[in-house]
């Protein structure tokens, strides 16, 4: 077993805004924020959305991801990931895992979560099994 | 060329150096360049012709294609042109007395959805109306012609039907090149291998010859019949082309002992498969998206292409890939060839052959030869002039290549 059971439609928010505004945003307690790109933040958790200081910011619910806990990061990387994982924590790593577009949320405490689009969850589960 | 092969062929090479001047100089001794020389000599008596190649004859895309001959295209002008080419291929052995291993197999073009089924029905009707014998057939008839097919497509790509192109055929690519080379050489045409053209000679706006390491050669007409590097050659003449160069890969497996009779393509999956005379299964798919001049092959391509092919033909998974290769294709922005005048006096083109060049060799050679001999493009190639882009008569035919 490389990963735990998946949870579909993880509650969260997607916030598109100026990079500087996202850098300055006060993220709510109880949420975990990953930066998909400099202008794109994904707030994981059922919390009130943050509106960053950018009048053109887009704040929208993001329910499209499935999430699982990675039980053995080293084995997952060895068997299914061609690219190198980032060395520092916390970090977000994005790319194909077992040939499926996915993301790894690497937490500071050493734990790791796997994110995949809900539509691709069964495909990825099948390939990791 | 391989010396052993050369001893088996009767190719009467000239022994002289290139003359200082010819009526016609053709750059590129592949199928297209040699066919043009052959038809200039045999149809029009023009033998003061020189064909130059940077490597050996047929070493470019003529040696890197998948040898399919068909005429089931998407627009009437193309269907008529390729149908004429297909008929010239059918008669080439009788005309030249030389064996090109021509084999009529029939081509099945699969549809895996209602939408594509409609596309294939339209194709069948349009092709039949333009003289290319094509019918729409159902799954039972497909299975009868090709028992190896999995009609469920692995459960994901069910076969709804197919257009069946009766005269679809294959021929041995090097034999086609050698046949045209032999015919041209016998008629007195000069063919120089390992003689790269490094530039064009211009007199004002007119192209008057070519530069080579063996000296400058003057020419009444210079024809570029190169594959892959036409933008460079046209650039020397100051002609900008609607051409992007892409690499196209293909591969063969080890021999399959059973007969695999037809050529099978899939419009939705984008791959095609046929059996070579040696029994090997020849498989290809789409060209690489990015423009590239690199003829390297990749495992990613083999993997993706094999996955498609084994989905429809489970027996392929028991075979092994023997060899893979890539060619660089000049793909025009409207997916049709570019033939004839360029707007620069003394400089003509036969290009834009993309992934559809092998089947066009006889008709393009014959048409360009007539254009050079008479100064007027014959009706079959006239729609494919470079001026069509400025005249808003682009020949958009993106769905007709077996590969995209």
């Amino acid at each position: 077993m490389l990963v735990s059971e998946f949870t579909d439609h993880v509650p969260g928010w997607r916030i598109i805004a100026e990079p500087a505004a996202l850098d300055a945003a006060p993220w709510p307690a109880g949420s975990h924020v990953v930066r998909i790109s400099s202008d794109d933040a994904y707030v994981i958790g059922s919390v009130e959305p943050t509106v960053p200081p950018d009048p053109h910011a887009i704040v929208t619910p993001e329910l499209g991801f499935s999430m699982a806990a990675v039980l053995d990061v080293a084995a997952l990387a060895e068997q299914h990931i061609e690219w190198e994982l980032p060395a520092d924590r916390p970090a977000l790593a994005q790319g194909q895992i077992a040939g499926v577009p996915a993301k790894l949320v690497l937490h500071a405490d050493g734990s790791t979560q796997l994110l995949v689009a809900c539509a691709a969850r069964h495909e990825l589960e099948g390939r990791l099994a | 060329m391989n010396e052993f092969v050369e001893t088996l062929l009767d190719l009467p090479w000239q022994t002289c150096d290139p003359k200082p001047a010819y009526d016609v100089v053709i750059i590129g001794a592949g199928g297209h360049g040699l066919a043009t020389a052959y038809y200039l000599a045999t149809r029009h008596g023009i033998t003061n012709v020189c064909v130059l190649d940077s490597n050996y004859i047929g070493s470019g895309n003529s040696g890197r294609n998948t040898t399919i001959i068909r005429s089931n295209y998407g627009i009437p002008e193309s269907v008529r042109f390729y149908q004429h080419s297909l008929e010239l291929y059918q008669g080439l052995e009788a005309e030249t007395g030389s064996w090109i291993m021509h084999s009529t197999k029939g081509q099945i073009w699969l549809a895996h959805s209602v939408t594509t089924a409609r596309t294939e029905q339209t194709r069948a009707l349009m092709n039949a109306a333009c003289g290319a014998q094509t019918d729409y057939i159902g799954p039972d008839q497909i299975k009868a012609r090709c028992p190896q097919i999995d009609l469920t497509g692995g459960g994901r790509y069910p076969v709804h039907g197919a257009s069946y192109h009766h005269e679809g055929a294959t021929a041995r690519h090097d034999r086609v090149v050698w046949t045209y080379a032999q015919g041209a050489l016998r008629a007195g045409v000069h063919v120089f291998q390992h003689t790269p053209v490094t530039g064009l000679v211009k007199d004002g706006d007119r192209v008057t010859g070519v530069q080579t390491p063996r000296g400058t050669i003057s020419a009444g007409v210079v024809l570029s019949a190169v594959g892959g590097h036409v933008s460079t050659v046209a650039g020397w003449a100051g002609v900008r082309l609607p051409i992007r160069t892409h690499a196209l890969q293909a591969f063969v497996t080890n021999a399959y002992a059973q007969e695999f009779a037809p050529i099978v393509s899939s419009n939705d999956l984008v791959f095609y498969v046929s059996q070579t005379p040696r029994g090997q299964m020849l498989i290809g798919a789409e060209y690489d998206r990015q423009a590239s001049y690199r003829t390297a092959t990749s495992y990613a391509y083999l993997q993706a292409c094999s996955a498609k092919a084994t989905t429809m033909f489970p027996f392929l998974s028991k075979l092994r890939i023997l060899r893979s290769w890539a060619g660089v294709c000049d793909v025009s922005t409207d997916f049709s060839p570019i033939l004839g005048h360029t707007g620069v006096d003394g400089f003509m083109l036969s290009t834009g052959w993309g992934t559809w060049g092998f089947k066009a060799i006889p008709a393009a050679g014959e048409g360009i030869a007539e254009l050079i001999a008479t100064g007027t493009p014959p009706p079959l190639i006239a729609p494919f002039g470079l001026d069509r882009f400025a005249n808003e008569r682009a020949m958009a035919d993106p769905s007709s290549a077996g590969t995209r």
Partner: protein
Amino acid sequence: MLWIECPNCGSRPFEEFRYGSVFPVTPDAITDLDARNVDYAWMQDNIQGVTLERWFHESGCRRWFTTKRDTTTDQFLPLDD
């Protein structure tokens, strides 16, 4: 295997990306407006060498970026050199 440096995600295998286009450049020497339109719509530089082009990291951050590539080797080159 070919690798591409995504400015956002780092080095990833070629298969994760989608090719966009080169930057079309109509030569200044073409001055006639109609001819410029024809050139813009259809003609290609088709450079044999280093090109400047757009790529899309489809399997990762899903962002477009600009990169240089040598079309004779398919090697990707850093922008600033």
